[in-house]
């Protein structure tokens, strides 16, 4: 469990303390994938670097499994860092070392593993990230996705309990992003590893995260389960992120709504109800006619969801509303 207790970070710029992170308190549970989303400069890089103290906080305490890491001596801090893996946007592999040597590097630095242990662990990790045949290559000979998989293997070498991902997929194409995210989700499940992932793409959060914190100007403005934050965003920044990820243009949508007749509802289906053939039967029972203004069916992590914006004309609207609510559909009246 990672606990932030009134953690604050500011940088001295020309003698003045410029805040990068305002006092923040939050808890990241053991074994969850926690997303931190925000625009560049929102403070998410700072936040993730506070967890392994690459950036020391200006004020506040950071507790990891009930230990105050801000009080560590340099030697304790180095030992602690071995238990926190980290992967980076630009991979940060050593170009002078082979794939196998890159993965072995943190174990060699630790100085507590025998050559045999290192060799076996590297072999095992190469298998895990499907790079067994690339062991003797140099990073420059690999594709972006392969480089990031080496990064993941290297981060896992010393069997960490926490994995920090700093925009780990931002330099990758959509297909490679997908495969790296799947790898992260798999190791989270297999190893029970806590993953803290920062990104500027809501889509990444939607695919793998359990909970998410949205950051804006050095502050966490919204936090909660991904499905809640994603389907019912409250803060304007969160809404921007969600719209962006769904490729919805806010102005276009407003114009569409103006053209539509009758009541406008937004229905949100989650889980099994996503696949229930509900709309037809509700229309028949209530005599309401509907047209679909916009809609989307997708997954949040492993849970399917659907979100439809409908305009309804005629019939008995109350019957329609109660039938929908009874079927576990979240109904919002937009107009």
């Amino acid at each position, binding site marked *: 469990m990672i606990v932030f207790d009134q953690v604050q970070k500011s940088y001295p710029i020309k003698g003045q303390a410029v805040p990068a992170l305002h006092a923040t308190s939050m808890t990241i549970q053991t074994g969850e994938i926690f997303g931190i989303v925000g625009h560049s400069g929102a403070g998410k890089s700072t936040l993730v670097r506070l967890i*392994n103290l*690459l950036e020391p906080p200006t004020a506040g305490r950071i507790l990891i499994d009930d230990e105050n890491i801000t009080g560590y001596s*340099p030697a304790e*801090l*180095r*030992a*602690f*860092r*071995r238990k*926190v893996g*980290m992967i*980076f946007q*630009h991979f*940060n*592999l*050593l*170009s*002078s*070392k082979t794939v196998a040597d890159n993965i072995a*590097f*943190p174990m*060699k*630095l*630790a100085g507590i593993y025998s050559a045999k242990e290192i060799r076996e662990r590297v072999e095992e990790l190469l298998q895990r990230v499907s790079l067994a045949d690339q062991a003797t290559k*140099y*990073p*420059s000979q690999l594709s972006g996705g392969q480089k990031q998989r080496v990064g993941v293997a290297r981060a896992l070498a*010393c069997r960490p309990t926490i994995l*920090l991902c700093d925009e780990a997929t931002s330099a990758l194409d959509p297909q490679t992003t997908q495969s790296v995210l799947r790898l992260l989700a798999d190791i989270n499940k297999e190893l029970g590893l806590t993953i803290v992932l920062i990104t500027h793409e809501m889509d990444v959060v939607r695919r793998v995260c359990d909970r998410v914190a949205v950051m804006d100007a050095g502050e966490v403005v919204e936090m909660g389960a991904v499905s809640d934050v994603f389907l019912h965003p409250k803060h304007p920044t969160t809404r921007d992120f969600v719209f962006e990820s769904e490729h919805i243009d806010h102005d276009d949508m407003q114009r569409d709504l103006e053209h539509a007749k009758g009541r406008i509802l937004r229905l949100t289906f989650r889980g099994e109800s996503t696949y229930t053939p509900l709309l037809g039967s509700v229309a028949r029972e209530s005599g309401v006619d509907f047209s679909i203004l916009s809609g989307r069916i997708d997954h949040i992590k492993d849970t399917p969801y659907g979100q439809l914006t409908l305009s309804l004309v005629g019939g008995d609207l109350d019957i329609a509303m109660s039938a929908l609510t009874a079927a576990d559909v979240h109904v919002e009246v937009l107009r």
Partner: protein
Amino acid sequence: MEGLMEGVLSNVDWPEIGLASWDTLVMVGLSLLFSVVIGLPVGVLLFLFGKRQLLEQPVAYAVLSFVVNVLRSVPFIILLIVMIPFTVMLIGTSLGVAGAIPPLVAGGAPFFARLVETSLREVDRGIIEATQAMGANVRQIVFGALLPEAMPGLIAGITVTAITLVSYAAMSGVIGGGGLGDLAIRFGYQRFQTDVMVITVALLVIFVQVLQMVGDRLVLHFSRK
């Protein structure tokens, strides 16, 4: 062939040339060795003490940087003369091959130190950060990540330093330093033996070409980018 040699290169004393070439080789080799041994740690410290670096130490950086700049700003021909008392104190003479080495190192080490600092700065900061995140201490970061990553740049720096030392070594002939430069000055310049001058210059050119070629090969060998 024999006749030609007699006629055109009549002043050239080949055994003397051989000896002088060997002396130049020894001067460059030894001074390069000491320049690297001294310049490498100084360069690493310059890097580490620098702004926003691992061991940021503005005062230590300023002092070290000042000393390096002073040595680098004195023209080598002046440095040769200024160093004489110090050289005598250090090895008993300021003449010959041995006498040339202290001023050569005084010229070469700070030069190389700056090149080391520059090539370490070229290493991606992300790599330092990643190594830090693995729990490495400063020594491990330097030896495990920085120096291996900067290897091609360091080798290129050694090559440039070696070539600079070839010309410095030739200059040391002015104060009786021995080697090809000494020969060129004593015979080629002071006795107007143009043929000796031509031969020594040709040998120096060949020497530099070979150094550059070997250096380039090594850089290529260590480059993984």
